[in-house]
């Protein structure tokens, strides 16, 4: 685990991981889009608007998982003082921001035909909005302070 985050190893593993992801990305994207938009049947209650759920729910989960990862890695960095953990944390923040933003926008697009409104101030949606603000704060902090002075 610690060797993976060592300065000399991290870019080697990242290059390998990027090549692997690039090799499977377009195939998986095509399969997923075919099932989401063509092959899966409409919901008996929501009709075809249920297809938005195929992007909305995973986006929300990834947004929350990114936030949890940042919290856990920050604790690990506080204890073990491994500088590359900061690098990983800095890289996760924009991913979390994008997926949280996606969850809010697609949720809004699903809400209009289903609930008849683009936005409702209920606990789930409001907490996602708070997450979005936290991500923005984190990114602004990283941009202003820089990685070396964190």
């Amino acid at each position, binding site marked *: 685990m610690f060797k993976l985050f*060592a*300065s*000399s*190893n991290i*870019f*080697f593993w*990242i290059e390998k991981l990027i090549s692997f992801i690039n090799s499977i990305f377009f195939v998986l994207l095509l399969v997923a*889009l075919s099932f*989401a*938009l*063509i092959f899966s049947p*409409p919901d008996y209650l929501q*009709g*075809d*608007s249920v*297809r*938005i759920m195929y*992007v*909305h729910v995973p*986006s929300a989960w990834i947004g929350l998982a990114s936030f949890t990862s940042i919290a856990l890695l920050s604790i690990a960095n506080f204890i*073990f*003082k*491994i*500088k590359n953990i900061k*690098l990983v944390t*800095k*890289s996760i923040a*924009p*991913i979390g921001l*994008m997926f949280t*933003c*996606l969850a809010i*926008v*697609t949720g809004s*697009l*699903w809400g*209009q*035909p289903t609930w008849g409104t683009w936005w409702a101030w209920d606990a789930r949606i409001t907490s996602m909005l708070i997450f979005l603000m936290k991500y923005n704060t984190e990114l602004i902090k990283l941009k202003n302070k820089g990685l070396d002075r964190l």
Partner: protein
Amino acid sequence: MINELLNMNGYGLYVWSAFSFTLLSFLTLYSVAKVQYIRERNKFIAKYGSLDAQKARVARTQTINQEILSGSQSI
């Protein structure tokens, strides 16, 4: 068939907007991540030179280097 797919029983506008926004976000994120990755890699190379994993492994096995690095965890 194509009209049905585009219209989706009246939900087409919402569904296609959601999927288009998602794909656009993925493209944006990929570009941002790529730029950020190249920037960090260049910073790393500028700081540590072109020390690859193989050379680093050999360097780490040398006793003198182990003694030097034993007290510096936060490099």
